[in-house]
């Protein structure tokens, strides 16, 4: 009787282990299949395409051309220009977002009546659809009927016109940066706020005992404590800036001329609109992919560090 009981217990246990295992596979497999179909396969397929000559709307099958697409791309000064524009856009908008987002977080750090409401109100822009918002900003930037110049103090556009924004090749990128900053400063603020709230009070109390100046407290306590989260915000925004597509398409479509032509926008133009150079676009896509993978790798590593600490 005794050994019998033991075996039945063990088989019961084994059965549950076994069913746990099958449940595990049952639960994960659908997700993995979908990912394989919509991610792994497309990635390998476009890697293959990038070494061929092929157009998605043509009838000819892909022809292997080796590294030709890549060498053409890397020798094309226009492409380098678009990368430079993207870099400038990323640098300007992420830089401004970081400074402003941190400043806003410092302002909202201490709770007051209605601070929750104010914080949520500030967060609204980042939840909106970039293309819709970007398109409406066109009317805001309009030099004669828009409120942007009006708010800058040009109250009589008919007699004293303010600067034009989206029609000017030197200011259009700035206009895009302004809207991007408007949309995403709240994101940086949100992350900074969470970092600030996590700083233990005793650090400040200890500093107060030592009669440390507010300046010293900021540089030695506040900033280092928030830095990991701030870094994450910056990395995340940098990745997003390199992907930027919706906002520019809504606001300028890359123009005037090619002054706001970001890499993602140009990629779309090569791959779809009119040109349909599928294999060439795949090569460019892979270059962008490698850049973004490099940045995301840093991002994930930092994320793990922060999570490990928290």
């Amino acid at each position, binding site marked *: 009787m005794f050994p019998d009981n033991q075996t039945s217990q063990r088989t019961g246990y084994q059965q549950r282990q076994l069913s746990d295992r099958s449940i595990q596979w049952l639960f994960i497999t659908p997700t993995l299949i979908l990912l394989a179909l*919509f991610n792994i396969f497309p990635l390998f*397929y476009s890697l293959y395409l990038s070494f061929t000559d092929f157009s998605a709307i043509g009838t000819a099958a892909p022809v292997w051309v080796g590294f030709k697409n890549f060498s053409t791309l890397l020798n094309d000064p226009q492409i380098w220009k678009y990368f430079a524009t993207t870099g400038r856009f990323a640098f300007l908008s992420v830089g401004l977002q970081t400074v402003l987002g941190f400043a806003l977080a410092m302002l909202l750090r*201490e709770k007051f009546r209605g601070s929750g409401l104010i914080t949520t109100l500030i967060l609204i822009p980042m939840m909106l659809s970039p293309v819709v918002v970007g398109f409406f900003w066109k009317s805001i930037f309009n030099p004669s009927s828009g409120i942007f110049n009006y708010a800058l103090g040009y109250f009589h556009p008919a007699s004293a016109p303010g600067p034009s924004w989206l029609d000017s090749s030197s200011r259009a990128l700035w206009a895009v940066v302004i809207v991007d900053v408007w949309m995403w400063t709240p994101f940086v603020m949100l992350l900074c706020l969470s970092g600030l709230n996590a700083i233990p009070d005793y650090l*400040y109390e200890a500093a107060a005992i030592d*009669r440390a100046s507010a300046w010293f407290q900021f540089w030695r306590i506040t900033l280092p404590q928030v830095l990991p989260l701030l870094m994450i915000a910056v990395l995340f925004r940098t990745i997003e800036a390199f992907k930027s597509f*919706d906002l520019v398409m809504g606001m300028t479509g890359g123009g005037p001329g090619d002054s706001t032509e970001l890499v993602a926008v140009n990629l779309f133009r090569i791959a779809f609109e009119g040109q349909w150079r599928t294999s060439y676009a795949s090569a460019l896509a892979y270059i962008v992919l490698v850049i973004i*993978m490099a940045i*995301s790798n840093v991002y994930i590593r930092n994320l793990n560090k922060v999570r490990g600490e928290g």
Partner: protein
Amino acid sequence: MAVVTNPQVDKGSIEKGVNYSTRVDKVGGRVQTVRTIRITAAVMLAFLLLIPVFWMGATAFKVRADAIATPPKIVFKPTLEGLIFLFTDRSVLNQARSKRLKARINELNWYERIALEGGQQITGPSEYVTRLRNSVIIAGSSTILAVALGLLAAYAFSRFKVKGESDLLFFILSTRMLPPVVVTIPIFIMYTKFGLHDTHIGLILLYTVFNLSLTVWLLKGFMDEIPREYEDAAMVDGYTRMQAFRKVVLPQAITGIAATTVFSLIFAWNEYAFALMLTSEKARTAPPTIPTIMGRGGMEWGTIAAGSLGFLIPVVIVTFALRQYLLRGVTFGAIRQ
């Protein structure tokens, strides 16, 4: 507080120390002033940031002349013209026809009258109506799928030791890191081959996959917070693993599931790039449509604003409902408050 009880420090320097710190004592006069300035600045900045949204709200209720007035009109007579123009196709009336129509104004209903004031006659519903319906169908179905599949995968990742778990999770997240155009090129070819281009099902599938990265990560975070002991206890009481999942874990995770659902909905609702590249007529959603709303003879900013406003209002409402989960949502559940 530690400062106050410290007998070594004389009174004067306590106050001095207090002024430097915002944490030790909050009743000092200067601290109070700084606080007031801080609050005023925060409130003013919040309103400054929201001006574009207010302006959109105002423009949505302007007649065309007011919407493009120079200088911009802050005070105006509100009208529903923009909203009506958004949902209808119209023809522009010449004076004679306009006069004839005005003669029998009593036969017209309220929206036809408003259109007539703008000199136009309604000929039928606009394509925006279909586009908006597509948006609802596609966002809704893909969210349901992504949350359902995400729940299963998140549970497995949260409760079992999955081989290569961190690699798989990173892989799932990596779908989000790529520019949409990179993903779209091969998918476009695939879709044209299988007849999925410009179909609801094609876009639903793609949004589901994209949202899976969000739902798996978010839901895993929420499930990690539910103590394993609950299920263990239930299973000791005779529940199977499946029953424990259904009757213990799911009810516990319900707020997390709700938050995840809404985030997933917002993504699918706002998505533009895939819809632009993978649909053309039948399955096109609202975001690629709004920038193509053109008036008859010139930009109808009132109509565009009405469309944008209608499109954004659900998101604004949801933002308020979700406010305690926003941080999680935008960082894929990586950072919690």
